[in-house]
C-alpha cells in the first residue's frame, strides 16, 4: 500500500490489504495448523515448513483477490505434508500416519503421552477425522471436503473413531 493509496482510503470504501488479512489468518490459524501438521508429520521442522508454505500460498491468493478460509489452509498444508512424506518415505497419502515424537522429560505433559499413545492405535483415517473434528473444531462437511470423501462416510468414520478411542482410553485408564 503506497502513500497515494492511503490518501484515497476513507470510511467504508476501505479495502483491507492482503498483508493485514494474512496477519489475521496467522492470528487465527497459525497455531492450530502447525499443531495439526506436527501431529501428522511428527517432525517439527517439516511441520514448520509446511505451515509456512500454506500461509505463503494463502498470501498469493489474497493478492489475487481470492478469499481464504481455514479449510483451504488445512487442505494446502495437508497436501504439502503428504508431499513431504512421499519424498521422504516414498509412501502414498493413504499411508500418512498421525504420529508424534513425544519427549517424556521435564516440561512435557505426562497425560499427553497417553492421549497420543491411544491415538496412535487408531487407523490413520479415523485418527485424522477425530483430530480435525475434536481438536480443530471443523464441521464434518468441512473435513469431508478436505479429505475428499463424502460427508456421510466421514460421519461413519468419526463415530467409529470416537468409539474406538473410548474403548482404548478406558483400557489405558
Amino acid at each position, binding site marked *: 500500500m503506497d502513500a497515494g493509496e492511503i490518501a484515497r482510503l476513507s470510511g467504508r470504501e476501505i479495502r483491507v490489504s492482503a498483508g493485514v488479512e494474512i496477519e489475521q489468518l496467522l492470528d487465527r490459524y497459525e*497455531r492450530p495448523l502447525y499443531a495439526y501438521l506436527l501431529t501428522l508429520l511428527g517432525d517439527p521442522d517439516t511441520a514448520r515448513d509446511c505451515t509456512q508454505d500454506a500461509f505463503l500460498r494463502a498470501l498469493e491468493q489474497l493478492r489475487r483477490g481470492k478469499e481464504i478460509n481455514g479449510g483451504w489452509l488445512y487442505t494446502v498444508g495437508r497436501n504439502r505434508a503428504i508431499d513431504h512424506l512421499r519424498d521422504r518415505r516414498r509412501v502414498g497419502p493413504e499411508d500418512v500416519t498421525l504420529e508424534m515424537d513425544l519427549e517424556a522429560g521435564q516440561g512435557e505433559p505426562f497425560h499427553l503421552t497417553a492421549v497420543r499413545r491411544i491415538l496412535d492405535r487408531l487407523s490413520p483415517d479415523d485418527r485424522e477425522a477425530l483430530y480435525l473434528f475434536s481438536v480443530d473444531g471443523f464441521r464434518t462437511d468441512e473435513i469431508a471436503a478436505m479429505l475428499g470423501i463424502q460427508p456421510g462416510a466421514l460421519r461413519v468414520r468419526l463415530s467409529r473413531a470416537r468409539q474406538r478411542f473410548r474403548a482404548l482410553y478406558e483400557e489405558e485408564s
Partner: protein
Amino acid sequence: MNGHDSITDLLARRRELTPDDEAVLRDHLAGCADCRRTAADFAAQDDVLRLLGDVIPPDTIRRSVLRAAGRRRVRPLVWPVVVVAAIVAVLGGYGIVAGGGLPWVPPDRHLGQGYSGPGGGIFIPATPTAGDMSRDDAIAAAVHHFFGPQARTVPANVSMATFLGIYTDSLFKPRLVWIVRFQGPGIVIVGDGPPRSPVDTLRCPPAVGHEEMVFFDAHSGAFVEDTSGLVPQGLPMTVTPAPAPTPCPTPAPTDIAPFSLALAPNGDIVEVGEGIRFLDYQIQERTPDGMLLRHWSADPTSRLQQQVTGIGVDGRGDVYVLGNNQHLLKFTAGGRLIWSTSVPTSYGSLTNVVVARDGTAYIPEGTPHPGIRVIAPDGRLRAVLPGWYEHVALAGSVLVASRAGTVTVIAPATGSTIHRWHVEPGEGYIQGVAGAAGGTVWLLEQRFSRSAFLGYEIAHFTAAGQLLTRWHLPTVTGTAEVQGSEPKDLAVDRTGRIYVADYGRAQIMVFSAGGRLLRRW
C-alpha cells in the same frame, strides 16, 4: 443399525446437530443411561484431545510470512514504513495541543510506529472528508469522556494529542476515527492499561505518567472505545496534582507484586508474584511475620514465559504454581522443580489452583467451557469436575468454587453440588476464595453499586451461605483505590488471620478475623 448406534453417531458429532436432531437426542438420553455415559465420555474425549493443540509454533513462520507480505514487525501490529512517514505528515498538518503543565512528548512507540488498539486492531492515518467530526469536537468529547462532563480544558499536568485515521478493530470493520491521547503524571488509573510493572510504578513513577486514549467515530461522532476500559463502566479517570520530584529508590531483586499466596503446613506464607523485570515471576516463602526465608524463580527453565496466576501447597510442603499458558509446575519446598505439566483447557484461561494435602490439584477454567481440572500428584489428569468456575479453594473436606457473585460448595470426589449461594447484599464480584479448616468460606470481593466501584471487601460465610462477618479492606476505600491497590488473592491461617496479596501496591497485608490490619510487607 439399532437405535443406540444411531444415537452414538449423533453424539459423535453433537456440536453440529440441528435443533431437531438435538431434540431427538435429548429425548433418547432422558431414558437411556448407557447413551448418557457415551455422551459424557465423548465430551471428555474432546477435552483430552484438545491437549494436542497445545503447541507453540516457531516464530519463524510468522516472521517469514509477514516479511513476504511486506510487513515490518511481528507484534504488535504495526504499519509499513510508508505509513510511518505518512503519520509524520498528518501530525504536522493537524498539530498537537499541549496542556499547561508539560511539554508534549513526541509520538512514541505506541503511535509513532503504529498502534495496536485494545481490540487488536491497527490505525492508519487518513484525511478528513466533508461532514466529519471536527478536531475541536473530538477534543471536547474526549475531555468530557475522561475528565467529566463539567471539564472544559485539559488539566495542567496532562498533555494531549489528536490523530485522525482509519482504525480496523479485531472484527475487521474499518472506520474513520479520531483518537485523542492523554498522557502525564496526573493520570492515575487502575485497570486494563499498557503492561507495566507495579513495582516500578510504585517505587519509581515514570516521568511521563500513564497514557490513555479514546476513540470516536469521525462520521457519526459516536464513542468507539477507550484504552482504560474503565470510563465506559462509569469509573472516571482520576487526575491528581503532579508528584513532587523525589529520589527514586532502586527496587530490590526480591521486591515482587504478589498475584497469589498459600499457606504451607508449617504456617509459613508462600507467595508468587511479578518481580522488577518483565516476566520475572518469583516464588517466595516467608514467616507469618514477613521474614523472607527463601525465593526462587517460577520459571526455572525459562521455557514457559508465562504469567503466573496461582499457587498452592500440599501437605508435604511441595509448591505448585499455575501459569496462564496452561502449565502447572511442582517444586519441592526448597525450590527444586519436580515436574511440569500442561493442563488441558479449551481457551487456555486457567485462573487459579488449590492443592489438597495429598497433592491433588484443582484448577478451574474461567471460561464457558466447563470443568475443574483435577490433576493427580504425579501430574496426570485424573478427572474433570463439571461446572464453570473462576476460583477454587478447599474448606475442610469440601471444594469451594466461585464465579462472578456465586459460590458453589462441591464434593471433590464426585463433583456433586452440596450448596450454592449468591453474594449479598448489593453487587459483588468474587476476586478470591479461601477456606477455613472448619469448613467456612472467606471471600475477597469487589463491590459495586450499579456500575460504580465501591472497593474491596472481605466476607466470611458458613458453607451454606450464611454471612458471618464482612469488612472493607481499609486501604482501598474511596480514593485510596486509585492509588494502585489491586488485591488478587487471600489465604486464612489456623488462627483466623487473613493474608491478602495486593498486586497493585506490591504488598501482603495481614488482618485479624475482624478486619484489623496487623502488619504488611
